[in-house]
């Protein structure tokens, strides 16, 4: 009876592997990041409400002074208490992957939270997404440390947190995943992608739970009224591309110029930039803070095209000042703002002068929003999907693809260094540019392969006959059946000959191990892994795999990479020595 009694302890639960634990941890990261970003959002809004906005109005002096005071407080916090929170969130997250094995100091999370909430809430022209991304990475890194993740997993944890932070800030999980993949990790492998998606989704769910499910912008319905309108969208892409290049260059020059100032100026430049923001805010209060309210208004046809272009210009100017002065905050929101206003301005102008029917200004605002983003950050997929995600409109996808791709191509053509690579270099970190990594051309087997040997022997060929050919190159290729090639060395054949087996067929004398087969499109990296101890490998056609089209040896790969093969190098080293000996003898 006792034997049949059920014991709970006797149940054997399968132990989760590290991969599964990592996925579970990704959900936890998403929840933590989501909660933190909710608090961050509330902090920014509360500071803005009590500082800048009042239903019954605020005095002008207060409006002008607040951004400056907020910037001063924020920069003091970072300078004296949270130095780890200094700098761009994207750059620091990348640095965590490539430099510090996924380590992001937790103090950076607090620092970013406090300094950026004060700075952005106080009206400085910067956005909360980059700090949210950094906070997410910091939370993830901390959790990774708590759970003693392996070094490999620790390197992956920061981008997982970054995706969660960004998803929570934008309330757009798809764009967050794409941005992290496009800009931070450049890895589409299942494990990483799964974790990033889980974290982003959990963070977005938490934000929607607390702050409601409404999207960042309420986008009016619209439709493509005439095919010629696509030209207007293309024009927005061109303008966005050129202006984004001008904007990046201005930032580069301004930051370089400011870097030459004494170190103490770091404390005074952000308040000065804040003061200029406050002054601009007297006439154009829309340029203060992240500016999402103004984008929403522009989407609803609030501004005339001239005002939209003016807002774009002033926003670019004040963002340039704030970002160059290193006021805490991110660049995402300002780029969306500037792009939206550029798009709206061009669209509004087209409405008046375009000979064919055009859409409402809101459509151009929406398309422009992603365009400038694509130009500045060179993340075209993110910008396209972000616009799609915030608009929930399938009709918008065609204009968005056109304008964003044009802006991206112009920016890539005219601005050699991508934005985050430039910022990282300024901060003294030489991080890999993922755009360059993506676009780097891999050498393939076809770049290294040589023509196949003239004679390929059947396995039934007598040893003596094969030896004559093998003596020339040291090896001979033998085929036992169609599409299966093996190698025999001249040494093996000579031994067989010495043993009096010269007239025997090869298959009876030597063991014919089939060689792994290469294809011309395989990368040389993959070929190297297969090459192993074989002196060379056969290359066949994918269409006709039984046909030998070439061979690849280690020396061929060396040559393809432009490296002198070791034997040739040794010969060259011996050559001058021999010449010297000869000349001495003479």
């Amino acid at each position, binding site marked *: 009876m006792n034997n049949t009694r059920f014991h709970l302890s006797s149940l054997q639960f399968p132990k989760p592997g*590290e991969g599964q*634990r990592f996925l*579970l941890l990704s959900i*936890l990261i998403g*929840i*933590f990041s989501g*909660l*933190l970003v*909710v*608090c961050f959002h*509330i902090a920014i*809004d*509360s500071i803005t*409400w009590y500082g800048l*906005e009042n*239903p*019954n109005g605020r005095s002008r002096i207060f409006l002008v002074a607040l951004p400056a005071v907020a910037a001063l407080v924020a920069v003091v916090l970072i300078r004296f208490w949270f130095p780890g929170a200094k700098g761009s969130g994207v750059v620091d997250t990348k640095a965590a992957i490539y430099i*510090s*094995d*996924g*380590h992001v100091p937790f103090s950076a999370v607090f620092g970013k939270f406090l300094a950026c909430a004060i700075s952005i809430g106080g009206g400085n022209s910067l956005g909360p997404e980059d700090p949210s991304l950094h906070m997410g990475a910091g939370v993830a890194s901390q*959790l990774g440390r*708590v*759970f*003693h*993740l*392996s*070094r490999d*997993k*620790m390197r992956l944890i920061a981008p997982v947190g970054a995706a969660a932070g960004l998803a929570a800030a934008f309330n757009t999980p798809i764009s967050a995943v794409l941005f992290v993949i496009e800009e931070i990790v450049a890895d589409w492998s299942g494990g990483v992608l799964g974790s990033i998606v889980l974290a982003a989704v959990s963070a977005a769910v938490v934000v929607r739970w*607390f*702050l409601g499910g*409404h999207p960042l912008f*309420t986008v*009016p*319905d619209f439709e493509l009224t005439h095919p010629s309108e696509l030209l207007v969208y293309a024009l927005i892409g061109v303008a966005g591309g050129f202006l984004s290049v001008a904007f990046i260059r201005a930032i580069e020059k301004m930051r370089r110029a400011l870097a030459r100032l004494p170190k103490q100026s770091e404390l005074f430049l952000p308040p000065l930039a804040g003061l200029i923001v406050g002054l601009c805010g007297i006439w154009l209060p829309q340029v203060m803070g992240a500016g999402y*309210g103004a984008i*929403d*208004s522009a*989407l*609803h*046809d*609030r501004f005339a095209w001239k005002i939209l272009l003016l807002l774009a210009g002033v926003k670019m100017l004040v963002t340039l000042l704030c970002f160059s002065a290193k006021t805490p905050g991110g660049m995402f929101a300002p780029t969306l703002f500037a792009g939206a206003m550029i798009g709206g301005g061009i669209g509004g102008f087209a409405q008046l002068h375009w000979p064919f029917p055009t859409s*409402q200004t*809101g459509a151009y605002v929406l398309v422009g929003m992603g365009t400038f983003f694509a130009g500045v950050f060179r993340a075209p997929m993110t910008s396209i999907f972000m616009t799609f995600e915030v608009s929930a409109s399938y009709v918008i996808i065609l204009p968005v693809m056109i304008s964003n791709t044009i802006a991206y191509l112009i920016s890539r053509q005219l601005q050699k260094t991508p934005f985050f690579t430039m910022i990282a270099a300024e901060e003294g970190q030489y991080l890999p540019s993922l755009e360059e990594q993506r676009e780097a051309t891999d050498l393939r087997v076809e770049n290294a392969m040589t023509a196949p040997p003239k004679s390929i022997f059947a396995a039934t060929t007598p040893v003596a006959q094969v030896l004559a050919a093998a003596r020339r190159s040291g090896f001979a290729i033998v085929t036992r059946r169609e599409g299966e090639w093996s190698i025999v060395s001249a040494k093996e054949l000579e031994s067989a000959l010495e043993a009096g087996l010269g007239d025997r067929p090869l298959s009876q004398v030597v063991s014919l191990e089939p060689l792994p087969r290469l294809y011309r499109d395989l990368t040389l990296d993959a070929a190297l892994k297969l090459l192993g101890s074989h002196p060379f490998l056969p290359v066949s056609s994918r269409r006709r795999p039984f046909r030998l089209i070439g061979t690849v040896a280690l020396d061929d790969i060396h040559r393809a990479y432009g490296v002198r093969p070791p034997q040739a190098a040794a010969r060259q080293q011996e050559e001058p020595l021999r010449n010297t000996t000869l000349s001495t003898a003479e």
Partner: protein
Amino acid sequence: MAIDSSRETRSGFGTRSLASVFVVLVALFGGTTLLANWYSRERLSRASDYFKVGQRLEAHNKPGEAIEAYRNALEISPNSEYRLALAQALIHSGRPEGASAYLTELLRSDIASGEPNLLLARIAAKEGRIDAAVNYYQRAIYGYWPGDAQKNRLAARWELIGLLESAHIQKQATGQLLELSEQVPGDAPVLLKVGKQLLANGAPSQAAEIFREVLKIQTGNSEAQAGLGEAEFALAQYVEAQAALRKAMREGQNNEEVRRAYEIVNEVLALDPVRQELSPIERYRRSLLLLEHSAALVSACHVESTPNTLLDEAKQAENERPHARDLESAIDANIHLAQEIYALKGNCAQSDQALARVFASINSK
């Protein structure tokens, strides 16, 4: 900074680590909940403050500032009431294109909401998009209204009828009027209005029905009586028209239109030679009268090309004294001649409504 590789060996979700993370998570969740609740209350309160400021400014005829206040309210708390107020303020300040985006958003959350549909219908009508306007009006009529739904639906339908009439889509307007009459079965004033509108739209039989319905509710309604008279008159039912108009006049409806209609009805009834109840002699007398009136009208119109033979024939017919057995053929001949003479009138501005109606009555028989 670098993670020790020895960590790999003790990697895992230890119970203590899990417990501590769980505690922190619960604390953070609790704190965020409290903060979010406060934030939500504060947001609603601030949005409401802006909304009240907007209403005050609108009442003080400052639409521009009111719009700003409504925008702020909406930015803080995306709420249907604020969105609608903003849209209305934009319409009042002459910026309907800005309002339509907000109204469309309202419909996205509740497509059957009456007021946004009505406002969008007005915007579409103003922009000349009649089909879209009709659609929005229909949705407003059958939509949801928070206040006095019946009153709002009626008002929306009246607007739709006005639009259809101004766009000369009479058939649809008539349909709407009939639907409206079914919507208010016992409401005499509304039914009276519907009847008049139907009459104006050229639907006299439906109008007559409606007027009869009104008279069932209010027997002494002289307006309905007059309306019924006019409807019967339009339907060429002159005897019924005469009775109704007479009654209406007796009950105080003495306006020019009623009097004129009554005069014409009397004249038609006095001229019509084909009424069955009349004796052949009376019909013959009336056929001569018809001939006389037609000849007089053509003379008044100064029709130069009038063939003298026709007028001579008319004079001759007037002087003839046919035998009793030839009376029917004489009547027919006179009517035929009168029609031929009347046809010579062409586009002459001079008209005789009674004469025209008599000929119409003859032709219909």
